């Protein structure tokens, strides 16, 4: 058994097709007729552009629009005037086309590989791909045709390039193994788009595994099992059946509204950390964003992001969501994070200290910049503002007054924004839960942050192994906080959501439905599973479970009882 990175869920059982890098061997030589050599080079470039255009069209059919666009990006690189021009200069100097092109490509590969930005490092793979493509054409080497692979083929290659992917027939390729690439690499994204189980970053895979060898690929666990025994085959065949059944079962919930067994409707939205994640929300069928953490904008840099930068990020997320709700949480930062330019001091007790809304209300300029950027972006979608770590009414009032002030400014300048923008709060402290009846009169919505609410209620740090056993959203004390918050919101007529991990917890879902939660905000890949979970509960049935659960005295009893009813 060999361990790698689990990159695309599912089980594949088949025989290996090793895609060896075709030997692209040539002897660098000087050419007598450089002009003719330039012509030969140009014909090869044209042929590669034509081939790549065909591959992009194939990819559009199998893997989707986004992947096809990446392939089409290759065409601009192949046609790059600097790459072509410099290659031709080298040829005119007497080099053969192969050597000239390889020199230029390797220079760019070197530059891109040394960049800090992961996205830019992937450009090195693109250039390697086009270099191999052009050398192949120049040398007249035939490519191993992935498209001819028989049913039950497991692809084994150093790196899954878009041009290899373009040849994949979904029905025939049952698994992918590569030597490089992580969960977010291009190989991984392609494998997921094709729904083919994949294990990446298997060290020396092309050395250990052999062509035509029987193999099992467990893309969920990140395992490769060469020459499986009879028992292993039986076990994984079974596991594959279950996986496929469950996936088909979940797929039925795609594109559907989120409803309980009694037809009651709920909102099922996602937590995101970057504007790009908004695309994942759409991919996984989320109904909007219940929590957009804005900290990423402030980290890994040397100064506060400008209003323009922030506006661009919020606007981008709003545009991708096309009118679906987008709740933006203002900066939630404190002494536990290192952000040198923010002047945060190391604190004895950062979670009880100068952080989140407390910090923002003291650093008014920074807070105003963020709020102004959010308000401006509100002209481009259904944006709502949410404040973190509220503990008393004064904080909410002061923050809302700043928003009103900025609204006046924007109106005077004639800058468009949503005049009726909703302003709500995170309920994530014991204080906010206790004061929920009062806060509900001044907040447009609540969102329960169960991670912090559990920590603050149980006075326990889940990172501390000695006390972590206390950390559970199923603690009777935490359940009471949640129940009270939702009830107070309901009585005041405001929506109450949950954006902690607990919102996706199958055990907690019946309780949340019974208490009257209206919005579940979960990670994008959990959307279909949670929609399915919700679909099996009617309010009446959930009420019965909640009534019993709330009479139990310990976390263990609650957990065991809920386990027995789901």
């Amino acid at each position, binding site marked *: 058994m060999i361990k790698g990175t689990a990159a695309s869920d599912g089980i594949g059982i088949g025989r290996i097709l090793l895609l060896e890098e075709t030997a692209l061997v040539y002897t660098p030589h000087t050419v007598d007729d450089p002009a003719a050599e330039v012509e030969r080079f140009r014909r090869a470039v044209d042929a590669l552009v034509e081939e790549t255009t065909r591959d992009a069209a194939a990819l559009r059919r199998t893997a989707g629009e986004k992947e096809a*666009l990446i392939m089409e990006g290759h065409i601009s*690189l192949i046609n790059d005037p*600097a*790459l072509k021009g410099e290659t031709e200069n080298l040829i005119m100097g007497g080099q053969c086309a192969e050597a000239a092109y390889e020199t230029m490509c390797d220079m760019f590969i070197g530059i*891109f590989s040394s960049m800090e930005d992961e996205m830019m490092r992937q*450009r090195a793979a693109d250039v390697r791909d086009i270099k191999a493509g052009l050398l192949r054409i120049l040398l007249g080497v035939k490519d191993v045709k992935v498209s001819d692979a028989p049913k039950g083929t497991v692809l084994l290659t150093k790196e899954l390039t878009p041009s290899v992917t373009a040849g994949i027939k979904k029905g025939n390729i049952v698994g992918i193994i590569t030597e490089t690439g992580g969960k977010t690499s291009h190989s991984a994204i392609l494998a997921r788009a094709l729904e083919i189980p994949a294990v990446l970053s298997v060290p020396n895979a092309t050395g250990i595994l052999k062509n035509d060898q029987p193999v099992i690929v467990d893309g969920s666990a990140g395992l490769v099992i060469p020459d499986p025994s009879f028992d292993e085959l039986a076990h994984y065949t079974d596991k594959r059946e279950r996986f496929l059944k469950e996936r088909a079962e979940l797929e039925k919930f795609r594109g559907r509204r989120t409803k309980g067994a009694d037809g009651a409707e709920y909102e099922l939205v996602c937590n995101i950390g970057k504007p790009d994640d908004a695309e994942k929300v759409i991919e996984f069928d989320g109904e909007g964003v219940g929590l957009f953490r804005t900290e990423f904008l402030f980290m890994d840099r040397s100064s506060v992001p400008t209003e323009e*930068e922030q506006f661009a*990020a919020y606007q*981008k997320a709003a545009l991708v969501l096309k009118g679906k709700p987008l709740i933006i949480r203002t900066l939630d930062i404190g002494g536990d994070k290192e952000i040198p330019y923010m002047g945060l001091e190391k604190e004895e007790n950062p979670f009880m200290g100068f952080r989140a809304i407390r910090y923002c209300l003291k650093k008014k300029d920074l807070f105003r910049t963020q709020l102004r950027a959010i308000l401006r972006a509100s002209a481009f979608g259904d944006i709502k503002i949410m404040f973190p770590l509220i503990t008393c009414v004064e904080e909410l009032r002061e923050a809302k007054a700043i928003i009103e002030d900025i609204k006046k400014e924007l109106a005077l300048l004639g800058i468009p924004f949503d005049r009726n923008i909703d302003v709500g709060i995170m309920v994530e402290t014991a204080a906010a839960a206790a004061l929920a009846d009062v806060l509900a009169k001044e907040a447009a919505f609540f969102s329960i942050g169960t991670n912090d609410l559990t920590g603050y209620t149980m006075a326990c740090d889940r990172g501390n192994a000695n006390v972590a056993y206390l950390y559970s959203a199923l603690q009777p004390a935490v359940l009471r906080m949640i129940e009270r918050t939702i009830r107070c919101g309901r009585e005041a007529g405001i929506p109450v959501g949950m954006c902690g991990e607990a919102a996706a917890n199958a055990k907690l879902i019946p309780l949340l439905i019974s208490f009257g939660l209206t919005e579940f905000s979960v990670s994008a890949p959990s959307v279909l599973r949670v929609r399915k979970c919700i679909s099996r509960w009617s309010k009446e049935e959930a009420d019965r479970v909640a009534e019993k659960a709330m009479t139990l005295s310990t976390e263990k009893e609650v957990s065991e009882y809920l386990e027995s009813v789901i």
Partner: protein
Amino acid sequence: MVQKHFTVKNAQGFHMRPATNFATAMAAHPCSVIIRFNGKEVNAKSPMLIMAACIKVGSEIDVVCDGEGENEALAAAAAMIESGFGE
């Protein structure tokens, strides 16, 4: 010769798509187009060179157009950079 100063404001800077779109748009103009950044001069008609320059959000750049149609080229460059490449 005409030139203009910009602060790059789209979150991703000049990564693949903006660099490619920008270079393609600039290639349509007969004049030369150069991006000055960090003391370097980059041929703005080459997506590879633009990406290799590592221009990020917040970067200060000058776009310099020289030759036939230089005003049109600069106006087109400004429209793209200032709109944040429609991101």
